[in-house]
């Protein structure tokens, strides 16, 4: 079993810990039954999104240690505060991190960019392209990977982007949850593939809306297309 380490810097202290599969299994029974699935997710995230963290949560809300304000992570057989090692029972697990996405050149988007900067959201530059870092959480379902996970945008980030928290036109379900699969469309894939194959497109569509396009233009595809409607026939 390969060991994967996560890293977090709090103030000037750097914390590094091996993700403990047993601790994950104690929280989510699927990880106990299918350790190979967890291994695949950890490997994929370590390879493609190494700054993301696996943390404990109450439903979709990440939990932090009341004393240290740091997350609870799978460590030494339980979910523990990375700083003081206090143990906490959690009901769900989230991947937390930022998805880098290229900014749009339109003037309307530059206004949003300025607002994001002002609100403290990060960006990186690579080859003269600005990549915005969209804050996301991915919540494991109890029957992973048979059931799709919930991917959510940070609520405040949506506000700064001028986007609603829930809207059919924007493909956003309740509380910033991205609608990335239609009902029954989910086919099992690792978390990193989900971020690459579904979330990048979803977030870029939101960027297009922030750049002035209508949601219908921004979300290309026919997920919400009108049903086929021939003329009523009457008596044939």
């Amino acid at each position, binding site marked *: 079993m390969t060991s994967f380490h996560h890293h977090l810097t709090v103030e000037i202290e750097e914390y590094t810990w091996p993700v403990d599969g047993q601790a994950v299994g104690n929280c989510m029974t699927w990880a106990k039954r299918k350790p190979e699935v967890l291994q695949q997710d950890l490997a994929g995230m370590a390879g493609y999104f190494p700054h993301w963290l696996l943390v404990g949560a109450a439903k979709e809300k990440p939990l932090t240690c009341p004393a240290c304000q740091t997350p609870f992570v799978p460590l030494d057989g339980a979910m523990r505060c990375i700083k003081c090692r206090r143990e906490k029972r959690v009901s769900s697990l989230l991947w937390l991190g930022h998805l880098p996405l290229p900014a749009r050149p339109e003037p309307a988007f530059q206004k949003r960019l300025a607002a994001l900067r002002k609100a403290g959201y990060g960006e990186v530059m690579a080859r003269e392209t600005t990549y915005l870092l969209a804050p996301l959480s991915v919540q494991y379902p109890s029957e992973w990977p048979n059931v799709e996970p919930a991917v959510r945008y940070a609520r405040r980030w949506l506000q700064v982007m001028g986007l609603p928290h829930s809207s059919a036109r924007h493909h956003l379900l309740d509380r910033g949850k991205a609608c990335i699969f239609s009902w029954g469309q989910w086919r099992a894939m690792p978390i990193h593939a989900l971020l690459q194959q579904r979330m990048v497109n979803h977030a870029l569509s939101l960027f297009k809306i922030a750049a002035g396009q209508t949601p219908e233009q921004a979300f290309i595809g026919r997920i*919400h297309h009108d049903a086929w409607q021939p003329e009523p026939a009457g008596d044939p």
Partner: protein
Amino acid sequence: MTPNSLTDPHFARITPIVGRHLRRMKAAVVGLPLAEPLVKYLAASGVGHWALLDPTGQQTEQLRAYLLAQHGPALSLDLVACDRPEQLAASQPDLLISAGMLKTSLSLAREHRLPALLIAPPTLAHPCQAIAYFPGDKPPPLLDDAPGQLDAWGWITAAPLCASLGRAILLRQTDLYRPDLADMWQKGLRVLEIGPSDDPLNVRQPGPAPQSPATERTFRTPPGRRGRLLIAGLGSLGSIAATHLARHAAGFILADPDRVDAYNPVRQAYPLAQIGYSKATALKETLLALGADEVTALNLALTDEGEVSALLKRHQVTAALVVTGTAADFAIARALRRLDIPHLVGRCYPRARYWEAILVDGQRGPGLEAIRGFTTTGPAPPPTPEQIAAYSDAGALEAEPATLIESGWAATWLARLAAQILAPPALRERWFLDLLAAQQTCLVGGGAVQPTVAGPAYAISAPGQIRAWGRHNVRQSHPAKNAPAEIGSLAKAPPR
């Protein structure tokens, strides 16, 4: 409870689908008692005005008692028994339904210019044929009225589809018409052959040559009470399926934590008088009345795998129908698989436009966890209005609307499949054994055809068709435990 408080919620979950048009419409029926399920299905969609060819009036009174118990004053029931076919025509029905006696009914429809649904129920010699007749049509060729031995399961599973055709004829000039059937009828296609015995999952247009081989000799599982069946989840699937299985299992273990509410009787097996009762206890009464031998009611939710295992051993369960509609299906299925108990996991898709049944033959073949979430089942249909409304925090409904015709059809198939898993392998039917052997164990049925840009949703190209997906359609981008050995990337093999 006052009549008004019953009236309001009773049809609430079907109105988004069928509106209120059917409440004004009248249907005439020839061919009782065979046609009785059609009356029940259509009444559950709101058709309350009926003229029945029933010279003794006895069946009419039985139906009246059933419909009043199930729907109460919400249905505005107006049920008339007629002595002669001419009386039916004189009652000016919007639709004539005939199960058998086809020549008489066709003459009546032609003479009085009535739209008609002419049904030749399935026998051991021919599959069910349903013919939509519209005034002005040329007289269609009819199957012989000579009585054959009724194919009981064939009729149980075909009746809801026939009812959906009848409903579509009634609604054809409203905004709730069926586009797929309107298109078919516009092309002059009137006849559907439902569930030919060599391929009971199929629905097709009859060809010029007889498509079905002589099927009297096709092996059918003999009737009998076999094994002890667990039904987990007693809603619109579990409760209706249970009523069809009452005489097929030696014992039943019924498990559901819920109580019957005012929305349930319209499409579940609970009469109005059982509102407030625990579903398990209420269904136990119903099954015993239908002739079941031994029924255990458990008013609890099965969620913990260990507890389910203990329960399975304690009650000596030999087969299970798992239809909780929740993620608990997985825990229950894991316990069943560990104990090598054949089981069936079913669910309806939104609005019950489609249903899914995953067959697991104990520890042979793929289990639920290797199929659900891993199997590619063709293009998805457009979202329902409720799914779109669910985007809004305020818009989500408590439960999806559906009618007994759609969810009841799913339930009849789950019952038919459950009867097969109850039987030992030597008594199972050929088509069922073929599905297991090919590991095509994920069935998706659709009552209507919905085109999408990538082809018909779930590859269902005829109303009432069932597609069998499985080993060849499993995509492995994530390791599936207990997945079939030959899983590769998305295979090109078409569904059955």
